[in-house]
């Protein structure tokens, strides 16, 4: 290191940097997840999806963001202004704070504490306040109903979610997010293979926790308009939107970390597969190749140039990865992001495949099936662990 910080603040430098990166970059990522969702939806429905803004609609998220920001900001006349202002902020802050506990790679994480997963759960549980307060402060019937439904749903499924995680935790033997990944390295097995039931329960509960179909009761358009954020518009609405996608990323990250090997590459112990370490380079070059291919097919010159530039950037990044230090640093991040996106893809896939549940069915699934099943899973796991 050419220069160094004074020892008293040295441990805070990297985390602070990572926080800045996360806060700055995440809204963009969320925007592109939305684009991904729309594209996947279009594909499932045999359409093209957004194509206007930029080549293949690649600039659509930015256009959306600009639209939301310059929209008129409406606060209902009888709303509780302070709370109305506060509620989306709570949602988005808790969601972003939760990201700080996610281990993106061996090197890239803001904090790794002894009680990491518990903290993560507790912070996401605070997000419920944003929903219930948002619904209440609008001083309007539909938001209030939506908020109450949503809260009941979140609280109910949090129990199942927690129990499912306990199953995984018992195998991992730690609450620290980094240690979980290391435990999977040591036991040479992703925990999804030890805890398939827990993973399935977790996945279902996670769908409910993030208000995704088939559990998107709180925003069931036909019944209660848009649920708790009916009265929200413009920037505040964007905040709720951001929080929702941040929550999706967080729950997927937990699933990846605890059940799918975190930032480990597949089969990290098999020497034969060491070539997978170079997968990030390969991926970048393949990406660049496809972008160039797409560029050659574009008609408008501006699109052609845009895509060509993007391809060049991809290729450049691929070249950068050839440096061993960079490759080592990027390695974990690559696998982690890949796995998270696979989980997110499943979320999206389910959204456009499965119909929505009725509210009472939703509660019944939670209380009568998921929670008892998750508890049984914990008990069986405990017995098996004592016996063997």
């Amino acid at each position: 290191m050419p220069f160094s910080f004074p020892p008293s603040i040295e441990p805070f430098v990297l985390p602070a940097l990572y926080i800045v990166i996360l806060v700055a970059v995440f809204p963009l990522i969320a925007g592109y997840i939305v684009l991904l969702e729309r594209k996947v939806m279009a594909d499932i429905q045999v359409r093209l999806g957004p194509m206007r803004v930029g080549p293949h609609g690649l600039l659509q998220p930015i256009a959306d963001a600009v639209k939301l920001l310059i929209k008129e900001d409406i606060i209902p006349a009888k709303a509780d202004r302070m709370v109305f202002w506060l509620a989306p902020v709570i949602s988005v802050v808790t969601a972003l704070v939760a990201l700080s506990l996610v281990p993106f790679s061996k090197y890239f994480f803001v904090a790794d504490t002894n009680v990491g997963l518990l903290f993560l759960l507790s912070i996401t549980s605070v997000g419920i306040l944003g929903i219930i307060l948002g619904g209440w402060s609008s001083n309007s019937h539909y938001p209030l109903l939506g908020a109450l439904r949503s809260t009941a749903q979140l609280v109910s499924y949090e129990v199942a979610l927690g129990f499912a995680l306990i199953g995984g935790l018992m195998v991992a033997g730690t609450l620290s997010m980094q240690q979980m990944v290391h435990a999977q390295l040591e036991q040479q097995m992703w925990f999804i293979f030890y805890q398939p039931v827990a993973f399935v329960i977790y996945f279902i509960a996670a769908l409910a926790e993030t208000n995704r179909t088939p559990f998107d009761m709180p925003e069931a358009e036909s019944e209660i308009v848009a649920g708790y954020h009916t009265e929200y518009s413009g920037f505040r609405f964007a905040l709720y939107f951001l929080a929702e996608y941040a929550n999706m990323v967080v729950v997927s990250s937990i699933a990846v970390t605890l059940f799918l090997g975190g930032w480990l590459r597949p089969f990290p112990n098999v020497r034969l597969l060491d070539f997978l370490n170079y997968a990030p380079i390969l991926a970048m070059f393949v990406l660049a190749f496809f972008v160039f291919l797409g560029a050659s097919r574009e008609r408008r010159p501006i699109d052609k140039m845009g895509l060509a530039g993007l391809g060049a950037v991809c290729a450049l990044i691929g070249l950068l990865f050839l440096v061993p230090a960079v490759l080592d640093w990027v390695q974990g991040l690559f696998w982690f992001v890949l796995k998270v996106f696979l989980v997110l893809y499943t979320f999206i896939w389910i959204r456009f495949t499965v119909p929505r549940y009725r509210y009472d069915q939703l509660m019944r699934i939670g209380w009568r099936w998921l929670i008892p099943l998750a508890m049984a899973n914990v008990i069986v796991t405990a017995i098996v662990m004592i016996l063997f």
Partner: protein
Amino acid sequence: MPESILNGLFFYVLAVVILGGAIMTITRRNAVHSAIWLVVTLMGVAGLYLHLNAEFLAAVQILVYIGGIMVLFLFVIMLVNLDEAAKQRQFNRQWSLALICTLVVLVEFGFFLMRGAGSFAFAEPGQGALKPNTELMAVALFQDYLLPFEIASLLLLVAILGAVLMAKKEI
């Protein structure tokens, strides 16, 4: 000593947050506002726990208190719709007792300021450790306090029973 100044700052900021939140909690007219201020206080207390080497407890505080109890409070406030109550007189007549409480605390503070922190003699520090926090908490809960732990499970069972019995229209 920057370390101790940092510690002091941390303590005083959190103390202001906690006490300010508490005072706002008991003076707000609207029960929802009270609840929000109570959340502020609880967050401050959680921060204090982090400062006092009780990470596990800080997480539990947020998870159970804010994510559970306060949500329950808000839920009930919204169910029983307190708009009427907010327009009425907020305080009852037991001011005298409250005044006595305040006086007692002031006397206590006066004593504290006069005699200094050393006048309160607590037990000597022991040989134990507080880290790794979760593991030690597990040992404490499942070995030293196994019986209370089991009884706490019964307590929660009774609480569930009671809440359902009271709140459900038809059993």
